[in-house]
């Protein structure tokens, strides 16, 4: 796509568009954050400090969802969480 955008002739709808970026890094960041959260919450015998860390991880995951997958799956309501912090 970027090749075609870069070489778009005058009059083409692609002319002047910014190059497209593969969003996989941002999507992977969300998946890794979810995996990290899952690993921590499965730990046997969580103590209060672990719970505080888990809560912090939850906040980070929710923020990542909003920043990296802002449109959710196209729903008009988007991400609408209870206040987590």
């Amino acid at each position: 796509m970027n090749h075609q955008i870069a070489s778009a002739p005058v009059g083409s709808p692609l002319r002047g568009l910014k190059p497209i970026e593969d969003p996989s890094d941002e999507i992977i960041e969300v998946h890794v954050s979810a995996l990290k959260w899952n690993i921590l919450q499965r730990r046997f015998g969580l103590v209060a400090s672990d719970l505080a860390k888990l809560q912090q991880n939850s906040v980070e995951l929710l923020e990542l969802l909003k920043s990296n997958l802002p449109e959710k799956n196209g729903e008009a309501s988007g991400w609408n969480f209870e206040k987590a912090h």
Partner: protein
Amino acid sequence: MHILITFDYKTHYQVQAMERKIKHKLRPQNAFGLAKDLDVPASCPREELHQFLIGVYGEYILPSSVYRFNQVLRAPELYLSPTRPLVSDQMLRGVWTRLRDRLSSLDSDSSILHVTPAYAAHFIDMYVDKHTGKHLTGDRIRVLLLTLPFLLRDLIAPEVERDCYTCSLCIHKSIHMNHI
């Protein structure tokens, strides 16, 4: 069945102290916990399976990831005419075929777990083609949680970097090879 429920005062006060410190409830009261005969099942560790794996990850994060890729490839400004997207249906299908093939290439020798072609096809049916009658159990969704961070890497890099004509040729060749 008798279930012995113990109350750990030390942990309780630790949690209370931490809640005061961060000004946030770490153990908010769950309405399920108040329902008669539901308190024990609702607090079982396997509940992670429904609330996190099937819920947050399966219902929200996975569809949103698929949507984000579609959104980039089919952005409104990438249409050559109102009915002619730069990324054709065939190219878009090629992206999901690539993900299906990456999933089904996992085997226990190299990746510890084995993903069958049937499972990979089921994943595409469910999340890409949105077949409403298809579901995955929590344990099967966990397979995706463990593998997708690796398999999504550069998923649409060929479409982004190569020109669409070369991409179509590659997809056509790949489909042709599958028929041989």
